[in-house]
């Protein structure tokens, strides 16, 4: 009986190529949409979590100007080296303080060039930003004090300028300065703001001042709090110290700001949660739309199929034989759609996560849920209208308009 049902079902599928492919398409879209959305949502969450871990939650960034109001930053005076020394000396709970000054520059090696940013700083910068030297070495005290022409390059710069060559000992030009590569940073990937953290060149602060910027300004001070010390306390102390040093009178606004990375990472975690639930909602809607599509096709074909059922009953088919045929038909179409949907979703997710640079997180549960839901709709709406028709008197089914 099952064999006959399969034979009859396959004949029906072949006979109605259009209806069959539309049903399959509905299931493919439902299944694929859900899997893709959830995979991307999971990937984005995973990436943000990774980045927060790589940033460290005890980092404070001090910069001139208020955080709000775009025009103010340029008016506020930059910091100087005494500010850095004062923070390191006067504030308790500080683990490391790194001054930095940033300039855009074109790095040239041989006939290759690459637009990047040059950061003048010292070795503390590596500590507070969680940078690791992949090959080569840090700056030495001597080199820092003397402002030698040396640099540590990020992975992107290495790749663009040196390709497969060994960069250590190579001389790259930064504007008028020709400097020797002494180290390469391990890759950190994109930051949460979307900028490439590997697209950087580090030089001693004095080298930047003298040979590139031509001033003695410090644009950012990175401070990491000691373990066990709350960043809130350090932040408050820094604010008090800087108000005093920069002579901000009482009642006046700060002309600098202290960013607490913990706050930022909390905000970002919150926003990925929102993103994930948004994608989840979109996925649920796609599933519903796909389901309604399947329903439509199945219900629209009921009239034609009711007459077909009448014919089958008239020539001696049992009700259960007709139902078995329709069930097999719905199961075959739904499983075909489910399998195609999974294949499409896996292919599309791996491409999309690659393009969006988020990790590919495989979640078998969402595949199970998507397939059960879509196939369930396919089977239910393929089976129940047929059951209703098969329970009619054959003559009523035959005369169905």
């Amino acid at each position, binding site marked *: 009986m099952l064999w*006959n049902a399969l034979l009859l079902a396959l*004949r029906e599928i072949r006979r109605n190529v259009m209806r069959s492919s539309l049903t399959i398409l509905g299931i493919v879209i439902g299944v694929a949409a859900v899997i893709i959305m959830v995979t991307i949502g999971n990937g984005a969450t995973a990436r943000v979590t990774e980045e927060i871990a790589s940033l460290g939650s005890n980092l404070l960034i001090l910069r001139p100007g208020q955080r709000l109001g775009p025009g103010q930053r340029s008016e506020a005076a930059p910091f100087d080296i005494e500010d850095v020394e004062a923070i390191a000396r006067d504030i308790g709970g500080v683990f490391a303080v790194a001054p930095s000054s940033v300039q855009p520059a074109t790095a040239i090696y041989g006939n290759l060039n690459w637009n990047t940013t040059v950061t003048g700083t010292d070795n503390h910068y590596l500590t507070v930003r969680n940078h690791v030297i992949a090959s080569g070495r840090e700056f030495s005290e001597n080199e820092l004090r003397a402002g030698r022409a040396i640099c540590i390059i990020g992975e992107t710069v290495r790749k663009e300028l040196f390709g497969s060559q060994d960069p250590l000992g190579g001389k790259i030009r930064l504007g008028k300065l020709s400097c020797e590569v002494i180290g390469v940073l391990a890759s950190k990937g994109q930051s949460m703001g979307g900028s490439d953290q590997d697209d950087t060149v580090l030089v001693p602060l004095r080298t930047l001042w003298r040979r590139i910027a031509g001033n003695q300004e410090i644009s950012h001070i990175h401070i990491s709090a000691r373990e066990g010390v709350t960043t809130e306390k350090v932040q408050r102390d820094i604010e008090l110290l800087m108000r005093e040093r920069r002579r901000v009178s009482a009642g006046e606004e700060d002309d600098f700001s202290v960013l607490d990375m913990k706050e930022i990472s909390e905000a970002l975690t919150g926003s990925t949660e929102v993103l994930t639930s948004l994608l989840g909602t979109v996925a649920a809607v796609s599933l519903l739309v796909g389901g309604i599509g399947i329903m439509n096709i199945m219900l629209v074909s009921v009239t034609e199929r009711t007459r077909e059922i009448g014919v089958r009953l008239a020539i*001696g088919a049992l009700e*259960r034989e007709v139902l078995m045929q329709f069930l097999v038909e719905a199961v075959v179409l739904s499983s075909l759609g489910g399998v195609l949907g999974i294949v499409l979703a896996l292919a599309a997710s791996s491409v999309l996560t690659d393009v969006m640079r988020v990790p590919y997180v495989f979640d078998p549960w969402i595949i199970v849920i998507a397939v059960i839901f879509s196939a369930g709709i396919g089977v239910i709406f393929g089976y129940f209208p047929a059951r209703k028709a098969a329970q009619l008197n054959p003559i009523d089914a035959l005369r169905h308009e």
Partner: protein
Amino acid sequence: MKSAFSREAEGPPIIEFRGIVKVYGAGHAAVKALRGVDIRIAPGEFVAMMGPSGSGKSTCMNIMGCLDTPTEGTYLFNGVDVGALSRNQRAILRRNYVGFVFQGFNLLSRTSALENVELPLIYRGVSAGERHAQALEALEAVGLREWKRHTPGELSGGQQQRVSIARAIVTAPEVLFADEPTGNLDTARGREIMELIKRLNVERGITVVMVTHESEMASYAERIVRFLDGVVEEDNGRGKGEGT
């Protein structure tokens, strides 16, 4: 020859209606399609049922073919009380003893003539090879062997009706029910179909019950039952088939 023998046999009728009533709907909207019909049809007879539309002739045939159930009365098929049969048993009865030919052909569209004719055999559980041979034989009998690969859309009305006759006779039924078999065809095509049905009746001894409103087509039958307002108004075979 066989049909002549069957008609005069004193054996039990293949179809016997005793006071069959059919009511559609309920309450004020109820329509009495049959108001107490008694008919006996002997094996091998060729009966034409005539009457104006709404006279109950089609309802009567649908009940005979077990496509519909009577509201009241007793229906004996080959001596078996159909009213006592379950839905599935009635399906088995249709499967094994009767064949249908409809005015609108009711073939499966986009399905070849051969597959259409094979369909009843699939439900009978006939093996693929056997099925193929029997279906070809039935198509041969209606003169459409060469058209086995064609779908209904590629066949003329007369050819489609012949495919549906092949489908009805492929199981070698005892009774062939034909509901206005020539209704959708022109006169020449209609005569061909009637010749074919007549031949099946004479050569194979298949009992034929046909509903028609065309006197010319009815003239192929030996017995004509006229319906009016849900009762048998005239039956020129009454008495012949009425063995005690």
